């Protein structure tokens, strides 16, 4: 029996958890490696999970209006080709 994984709570939970990584979804460039790099927090053991928790906490503060979304402008400024993943062969 095949199940559409989108209906499963786990990936949804993960996506929610990592919303804190993205201050805005408005960037136009494609970087297929972004999700894979973020996943490495979950694969990094307790220390990685602690960082994920911290990032989620900032996201929560931003949602509550306690912390402004300055990350967005900062991220845009850093969005240079050098900042993208290099995957050579």
């Amino acid at each position, binding site marked *: 029996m095949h199940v559409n994984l989108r209906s499963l709570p786990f990936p949804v939970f993960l996506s929610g958890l990592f919303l804190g990584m993205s201050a805005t979804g408005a960037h136009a460039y494609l970087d297929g490696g972004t999700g894979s790099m973020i996943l490495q927090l979950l694969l990094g053991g307790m220390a990685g999970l602690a960082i994920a928790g911290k990032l989620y906490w900032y996201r929560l503060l931003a949602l509550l209006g306690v912390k402004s979304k300055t990350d967005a402008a900062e991220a845009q400024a850093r969005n240079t080709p050098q900042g993208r993943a290099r*995957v050579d062969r």
Partner: protein
Amino acid sequence: MNETASPPPAELGHHPPIEPEPGSYRDRNGSVFYRDGRVFRRLGARARENWKLLRDASFFGACRADGRIVDTWEATPSEGGLGPGILEHARVPFVSYPYEWPFGMLKDAALLHLDLMGQALGADMILKDSSAYNVQWFGARPTFIDVASFEPLEPGEPWVGYRQFCELFLYPLMLQAYKGIDFRPWLRGRLDGVEADQMRRLMSARDLLRPGVLLHVAAQSALQRRYSAGAGNVRAKLARAGFDKSMILRNVDKLGGLVARLSPPRMRTQWSDYDRTHSYEEAEFRRKVEFVGEAARHRRWKLAWDLGCNTGTFSRIVADHADYVVAMDGDWMAVEHLYQQQKAAGDPGSILPLVVDLCDPSPNQGWLGTERKGLAERGRPELTLCLALIHHIVISANIPLADFVRWLAGLGTSLIIEFVGRDDEMVQALLANREDQYDDYHPEIFEDLLATHFDIKDEQDLKGGRRRIYFATARS
């Protein structure tokens, strides 16, 4: 770098033409080229700095000495005009691709890659990519060929090659181990491997419970979808948040355990079928072995192909008289068996087992159609074995007998070939359920074709005349 362990510095003083490796265009900082049959790598400024770090790292010397990394030394630039920063590599006897490897070879290549990741991280370096094409073989021994992939690990940097590791190593292995799906057509169909999204669609709900699927497949696919439009400079954010090397090490360590436990389900149950792989009585089989041994002793061969090698009985005989044998069969289980036997026997690097369907062999493909080469373009054999093969080519695959013999002649190879007659039970089994349209499949026609293109040096009846074996040399 321990210079005493290296071959003498290469002199590039004369000027034979430089031939760039078409599969080496991606990394501008370390492209490969050939000159006079030797393999060189030109390092850019940044790659030269990385090379110095690697050369002085203790793990590099150890891995080079035991063959986990291809032997590499600094070439001496002279009037050849190649400039500084040229490395020379030991030449791999026959290049092969992951879509030609049996499961065990892809698995061992993955484990080598993870091993080198761990070693590099220990020296504050990292492999910047995870291409399965960076692993090549000396017989059953894998070796990592892309020394320009090693670079210093910046603080807070994630493992950029993780996704590529999944696409080219982990997912193909999971496909075979968890789903019983042959990974080779997937790798041949897409040179960058299996995408996380495609892999997730292939997984059932039950598969989510299998080791590694939830995180490496489902979560990765979900996160890639979520962040396909970007999330700012994630690397900088991760670094600021405190991402460090220990997290990469843990991932690499866990992946090593996961990959080590993967095995194809069918392998465990059908292994014993391969213990007896021919239709001969023992005495007749010995006559065939003696004929092949005698023919192979004719001279020393640089490269031999064993087409339809099965589990490699005759590859081993020929290996005594050849520098290198490429053993090919379309049956991946047989090739897996050969690989595991060679590995267990401590193969000296003489037999390369490959899964190849001769009727649909690996093509020229990739960028410009030259990035990955077809079979014959990677090295032509001086001797080719076609034992118990021709009835599969002509009857099973409907390839005209004349075309097959002409193809062999075009390789410029000598030949040990067995004709399996119509009264042989193997041919009768093939003809049992198909219309006999094979007017060309007769011993006289075969012998005429062979004599047209080759010089027949020796021949002998086998199985009471139902088969006949020939040794024929290339006609110059």
